[in-house]
């Protein structure tokens, strides 16, 4: 299957890339790992006039943790993030990165491409909600930072303008008494999740929940959050009854589409179950237990 013809550009710097994109206009698209874009082009669901290959741009392949301030370059692949030292400090990152698709896709696909695609089935946008991440964007007008909650507007829609690139993702390492877990339910490795849940919670003084972030993926046009569910948990000792109530509240706020992966009701049932599993794992990790985590397969 061949995509429709397009012109290919390989700029040598970020400045040049942004300049090219603004010159070429809205019919041009950046190309990073291509693991979302190429399948779309092959199906001719999109026919951009030009592709601007950003995958070799210098300065966007990095990961660092300076005193708890994490910065991940947009071109970091899922595979590199999943194997990095960051996973020791923030285990929920490993849950997400190592559970995306299969080794071949993880070797090419990038975190920047995943958030920019704003695909409701992509894992990174949901995961980054649990860490209150900030997206660094470079455009004609310069640099701006946008919280992930504002960055994703709708399905496949972000705040990026045509000539703007994601260059970096930033967030803080959660405190030592915090634990997180991200679980996606997938039919097989090279399939997008049917549903996914991310939870990051901080426990203090006899297991009282100090802080919590909850997000559901593949459960609506954009990652689903719920102040109501978070407020139910904050300041309380986390009993399974309370967790069930929170699960109910956030699942209530979701709107999972019926599709080949299941009916809406089936997906809600999966979300409730994943929520409880992710909460258990997050609580154990908050208590200091080291657990490997990953996506669940049928």
């Amino acid at each position, binding site marked *: 299957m061949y995509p429709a013809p397009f*012109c290919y550009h390989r700029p040598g710097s970020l400045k040049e890339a942004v300049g090219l994109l603004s010159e070429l206009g809205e019919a041009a698209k950046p190309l990073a790992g291509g693991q979302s874009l190429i399948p779309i082009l092959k199906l001719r669901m999109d026919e951009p006039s030009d592709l601007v290959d950003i995958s070799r741009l210098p300065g966007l392949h990095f990961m660092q943790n300076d005193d708890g301030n994490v910065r991940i370059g947009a071109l970091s692949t899922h595979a590199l993030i999943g194997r990095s030292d960051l996973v020791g400090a923030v285990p929920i990152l490993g849950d997400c990165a190592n559970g995306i698709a299969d080794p*071949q896709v993880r070797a090419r696909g990038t975190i920047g491409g995943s958030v920019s695609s704003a695909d409701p089935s992509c894992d990174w946008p949901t995961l980054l909600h649990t860490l209150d991440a900030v997206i660094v964007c470079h455009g004609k007008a310069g640099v701006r930072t946008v919280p992930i909650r504002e960055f994703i507007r709708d399905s496949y829609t972000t705040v990026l303008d045509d000539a703007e690139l994601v260059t970096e993702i930033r967030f803080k390492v959660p405190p030592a008494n915090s634990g997180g877990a991200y679980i996606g339910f997938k039919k097989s490795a090279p399939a997008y999740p049917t549903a996914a849940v991310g939870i990051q919670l901080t426990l203090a003084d006899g297991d009282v929940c100090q802080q919590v972030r909850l997000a559901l993926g593949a459960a609506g046009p954009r990652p689903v959050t719920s102040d109501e569910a978070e407020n139910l948990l904050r300041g309380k000792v986390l009993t399974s009854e309370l967790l069930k109530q929170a699960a109910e509240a956030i699942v209530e706020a979701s709107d999972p589409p019926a599709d080949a992966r299941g009916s809406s009701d089936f997906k809600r049932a999966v979300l409730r179950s994943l929520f409880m599993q992710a909460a258990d794992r997050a609580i154990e990790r908050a208590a200091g237990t080291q657990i490997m985590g990953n996506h669940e397969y049928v």
Partner: protein
Amino acid sequence: MSEQIQRIPVEITVNGTCYKREVEPRMLLVEFIREEINLTGTHIGCDTSYCGACTVILDGNAVKSCTLFAVQADGGEILTVEGLEKEGELHPLQQAFSTEHGLQCGYCTPGMLMSSLVLLAEKPEPEDKDIRKCLSGNLCRCTGYQNIINAVQTAAKDLREA
């Protein structure tokens, strides 16, 4: 988009030989491998990024060559199934797939071999679950996978003892 079709010069090393060609930007790497340089051991199964039959090794990583433009591999080094055999001798992985009956129709096999090779380079003593995880992006309609796992274990052993 101008009416004239753009052609981009690329230099791609495949199995140790450098190939210089001018390609259309939309040419997929798998088409480059199969049609430009006539190495047809790399298969197209699904052509939708799912099955892994088109897996080759690009700069040390297993990748799906149906989900990569040839221009993206410019300057890269590729290993395909044809590069495994040395002086008429099958690679230990190929030999093990044969002796352990790790293939039936053989359509998925080139991809299975390339994914497994990357695993064995990183993990010479894999557990079965490592092999399953490594091959999670390679689908087989024939074998039921068990003999493939056995073949990779046998090859791992042979490579360690070699």
